[in-house]
């Protein structure tokens, strides 16, 4: 019979990690995906696991742990997902940015994280092609990179060894509940799977799955465009991004960069990262445009403009392609890793916005701990879905 301990919906990086961890823990698992593996955001993104872009506190703690888990998985898995620890560099354009950066580094260092400030001279020693007028930056040597869709394939291949059943090209159309309100089955366009536990890993589509059981999940799509360079010499050897990135990511930091209207209006901040194939990925951009993933010329121009300001050598290097992805955004920038109180057996692992790649291993692990009734690696009260209900109560 089509009956499983757990049905995981969505074969993005989160669903693949959740499926792997559950299968390894001995559960019979079905992974259901409307397209093929990595059909959604996890094949339309960048590829870094950073602690330097997290807020001090739980965000950094679980981010750091997740990188450690990646290191172990890279050793353990027979499927290579191009993991490497290259480090990352934040660059500051102005003295003021440098000052905010120092405060941030001091806070992270006090918590024991290995980040350090570098001055103008050191910056150019680390990355010689950077513009000469930059003031300095933050260097985080532990930051790592991998190929996100290969991570998805790797999780699935390893999970199959523990018996994972994969249902690609199956779109979930409904989730039924028993008389006691508990999850009973998952209905796809092609079959019905019986189960008492569903994990919603549907990324930006998570809210649609929530509606099927009558709950309101506040995950929204936040678009980001990426430009791909031709294969070229190592113009940078690690992820480099402008400190203003931080400022565009968190709306609560008040700081205004001196940038063109095009860059300002499209919420663009310079990021570049190397890939194993010697192409470079350039961004970054954030906008609320619904589910639209078309390429926008203005955004392409703005990203290129900002890129050559920080890395003038790019002027003569070609951009061969552009693509856009949509991040699963939540209002308070913390993922949801939780069972839903009102619907026993319904779990959510989502809303990782721009950190889903980083956070995938730890998320899979903690969902498995929740389902097994074990203590989670971290106190994740703040990642609980019920936080939104409390908010509603406060505001009404």
């Amino acid at each position, binding site marked *: 019979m089509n009956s499983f301990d757990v049905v995981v919906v969505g074969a993005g990086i989160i669903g693949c990690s959740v499926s792997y961890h559950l299968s390894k823990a001995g559960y019979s698992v079905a992974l259901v995906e409307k*397209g*093929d*593996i*990595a059909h959604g955001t996890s*094949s339309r993104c960048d590829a870094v696991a950073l602690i330097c872009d997290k807020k001090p506190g739980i965000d950094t703690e679980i981010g750091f742990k997740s990188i450690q888990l990646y290191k172990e998985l890279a050793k353990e898995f027979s499927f290579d997902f191009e993991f490497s620890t290259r480090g990352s560099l934040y660059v500051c354009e102005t003295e003021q940015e440098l000052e905010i950066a120092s405060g941030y580094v001091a806070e992270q260092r006090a918590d024991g994280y290995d980040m350090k400030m570098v001055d103008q001279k050191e910056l150019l020693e680390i990355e010689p092609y950077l*513009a*000469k*007028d*930059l003031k300095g930056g933050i260097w985080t040597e532990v930051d790592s990179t991998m190929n996100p*869709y*290969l991570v998805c*394939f790797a999780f699935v291949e390893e999970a199959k060894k523990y018996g994972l059943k994969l249902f690609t*090209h199956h779109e979930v159309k409904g989730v039924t509940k028993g008389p006691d309100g508990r999850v009973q089955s998952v209905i796809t366009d092609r079959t019905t799977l019986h189960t008492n536990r569903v994990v919603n890993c549907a990324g930006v589509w998570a809210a649609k799955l929530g509606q099927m059981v009558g709950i309101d999940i506040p995950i929204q799509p936040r678009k980001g465009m990426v*430009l791909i*360079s*031709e*294969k070229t010499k190592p113009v940078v050897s690690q992820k480099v991004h402008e400190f203003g990135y931080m400022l565009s990511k968190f709306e609560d930091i008040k700081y205004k960069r*001196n940038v063109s209207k095009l860059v300002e209006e499209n919420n663009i901040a310079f990021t570049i990262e190397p890939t194993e*194939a010697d192409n470079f990925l*350039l961004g970054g951009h954030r906008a609320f445009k619904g589910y639209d993933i078309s*390429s926008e010329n203005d955004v*392409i*121009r*703005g*990203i*290129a*403009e*900002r*890129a*050559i*300001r920080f890395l*003038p050598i*790019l*002027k*003569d*290097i*070609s*951009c*061969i*392609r*552009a*693509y856009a992805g949509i991040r699963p955004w939540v209002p308070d920038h913390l993922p949801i890793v939780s069972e839903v109180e009102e619907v026993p057996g319904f779990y959510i692992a989502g809303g990782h916005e721009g950190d889903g790649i980083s956070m995938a291993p730890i998320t899979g692990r903690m969902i498995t701990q929740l389902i097994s009734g074990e203590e989670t690696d971290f106190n994740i009260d703040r990642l609980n879905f019920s936080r939104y209900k409390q908010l509603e109560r406060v505001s009404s």
Partner: protein
Amino acid sequence: MSDEKTIVCRCEEISFQTISDTVREYSCSSREVKLRTRAGMGYCGGRTCRHMIDTIVAGINQEPIADEIQLSYRPPARPLTFGVLGGMQHDNESR
């Protein structure tokens, strides 16, 4: 000529053999073959090899695998330098 030597994607140098082995092993769509092998992800953006990849995949998978996007072309329509895209002249440019 052997399948190993027949190059389907010239930009990324991916052989007929690699592509057909991947389709057989994972019974996957063109899109997944592209992600797994890099075929179609090269300088020309798949303009040269895309049709061939689709044909190979369709030939091996008896029943066509529905995938609304298959191999999509992505803009820009042809490679352009970042200098041209971003505008060569810059107020805040470094010296």
